C-alpha cells in the first residue's frame, strides 16, 4: 500500500502528519469503542444473537442506523420500515464520498470498492482533515482513520458488549457522549482554513440545527451539508486566497506556492469569485 499523487511531501512532514492522525484517531477510537460496547448491549437486549450483532457491525457498519434498528426490532417494526429508515439515516455518506472522490481518482477501482464500505462519519472527518493538512491523498492515512480508528474498535467492542451484557457502564456517565459531536466540531475547525470554509461550516451548523428541530436530525444534517457550501461559494475572498484554495490545486493535491503562482499568473483570469486583489488570506 502506498501513497498516491503528485509530488510527495518531505518524509518528515508525512510522518508528523500521520503521528497527529494517530493521536486524533486514538481519541475517536476510545469513543467508538465505548459506543460499540453499548451497541452490543442494546443488540443483546433486543434479542440479537452474538452472530447477528457482529453481522450488523461488520456488514452494516453504521452506528446510528444500527442503534435505530435494534430499537425498531425490539419494538416489532417490520423489516421494510427498518430498511427504508436506514437508507435515509445513511444517505449523508454520499456527501462524504463525493467530497473525497476527486482525491481518490488514482486509487485502483478494487481498492475503492473496499474503501467505500468503511467510509463513516468519523473516517471521513479524520481522513479529510489529514488530507487537508498534507495537501494530498494518503492511502495509509485513510486506512488508519477508517479501520484502526473505527472499524476495529467498533467491531471488537460489539463482541465484548454482546457477550458481557449488563456489566457495561453507561458511557454518558463519563462524558463520552459528547466525544462524537466534539470530535466532529474539532475536525471541522481543522478543515476551516479560509473564509469560505468558515462560512460553509457556520451555515451548515445553523441550517442543520434548524432543520433537525423541524424535521429531524437525519434530514437536517444532510441539508446542512448540502446548502452550507453554497453559502461558502457565495462568499467573496481575496484573489490570492481564491488562488491558493482553487479546486484545481487543492484537489490535485499540489502544494501552492503563492508567490510563484502570482508571478506566473498575474494577468490570468484565474479566480473563482475573485474578490479585490491583494490583502492576506483570511485565515481563521
Amino acid at each position, binding site marked *: 500500500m502506498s501513497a498516491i499523487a503528485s509530488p510527495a511531501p518531505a518524509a518528515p512532514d508525512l510522518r508528523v502528519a500521520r503521528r497527529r492522525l494517530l493521536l486524533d484517531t486514538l481519541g475517536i477510537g476510545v469513543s467508538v469503542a465505548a459506543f460499540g460496547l453499548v451497541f452490543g448491549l442494546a443488540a443483546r437486549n433486543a434479542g440479537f444473537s452474538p452472530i447477528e450483532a457482529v453481522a450488523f457491525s461488520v456488514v452494516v457498519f453504521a452506528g446510528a442506523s444500527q442503534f435505530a434498528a435494534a430499537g425498531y426490532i425490539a419494538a416489532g417494526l417490520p423489516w421494510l420500515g427498518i430498511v427504508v429508515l436506514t437508507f435515509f439515516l445513511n444517505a449523508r455518506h454520499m456527501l462524504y464520498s*463525493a467530497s473525497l472522490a476527486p482525491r481518490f481518482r488514482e486509487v485502483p477501482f478494487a481498492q475503492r470498492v473496499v474503501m467505500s464500505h468503511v467510509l463513516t462519519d468519523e473516517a471521513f472527518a479524520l481522513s479529510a482533515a489529514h488530507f487537508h493538512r498534507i495537501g494530498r491523498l494518503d492511502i495509509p492515512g485513510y486506512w488508519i482513520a477508517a479501520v484502526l480508528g473505527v472499524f476495529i474498535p467498533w467491531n471488537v467492542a460489539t463482541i465484548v458488549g454482546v457477550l458481557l451484557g449488563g456489566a457495561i457502564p453507561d458511557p454518558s*456517565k463519563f462524558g463520552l457522549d459528547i466525544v462524537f459531536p466534539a470530535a466532529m*466540531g474539532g475536525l471541522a475547525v481543522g478543515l476551516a482554513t479560509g473564509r469560505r470554509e468558515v462560512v460553509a461550516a457556520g451555515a451548515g451548523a445553523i441550517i442543520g440545527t434548524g432543520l433537525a428541530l423541524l424535521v429531524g436530525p437525519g434530514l437536517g444534517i444532510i441539508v446542512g451539508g448540502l446548502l452550507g457550501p453554497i453559502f461558502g461559494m457565495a462568499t467573496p475572498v481575496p484573489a490570492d486566497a481564491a488562488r491558493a484554495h*482553487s479546486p484545481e490545486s487543492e484537489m490535485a493535491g499540489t502544494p501552492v506556492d503563492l508567490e510563484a503562482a502570482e508571478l506566473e499568473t498575474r494577468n490570468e483570469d484565474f479566480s473563482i469569485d475573485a474578490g479585490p486583489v491583494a490583502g492576506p488570506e483570511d485565515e481563521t
Partner: protein
Amino acid sequence: MSTQLVLLAVLMFGVTYPARALPLLAPGIERLPPRALLYLRLVGPAVLASLAAANTLVGKTPDGTPYFHVGVELVGVIACVAVVAWRRNLLLGLVVGVGLVAAARFAGLA
C-alpha cells in the same frame, strides 16, 4: 443460535453501501467543473459542523420529538473546539471537553 437478522443486516448494507460507494466509484469525477470541485471541498466543513451542532443542540423527548437543548454538552463541545483551534490537537480537545462534562455530571451540575 439465531441467524435470521443476518439477512436484515445484508438488506441494510444494500441501502447503505451505494451512498458510500457511488461517488467514489463513478468514473469522470475528476472532470467536474472547478465550481463543482469547490462545492465538494466545502462539503466537509459544512457537514461536520452540521453534525456537531445538531448532535449538541437538538435533544429528543421520549416520544421522539426534537427540541432545542442547551446544556453542559454544549460547554464541552465548545471547549473542545476552542482547544483544537488554539493547540491544533484533537485528543487534547476531547480530553478537556469530556473532562468538563464528566466533572459537571459527577458534581451534580448537569
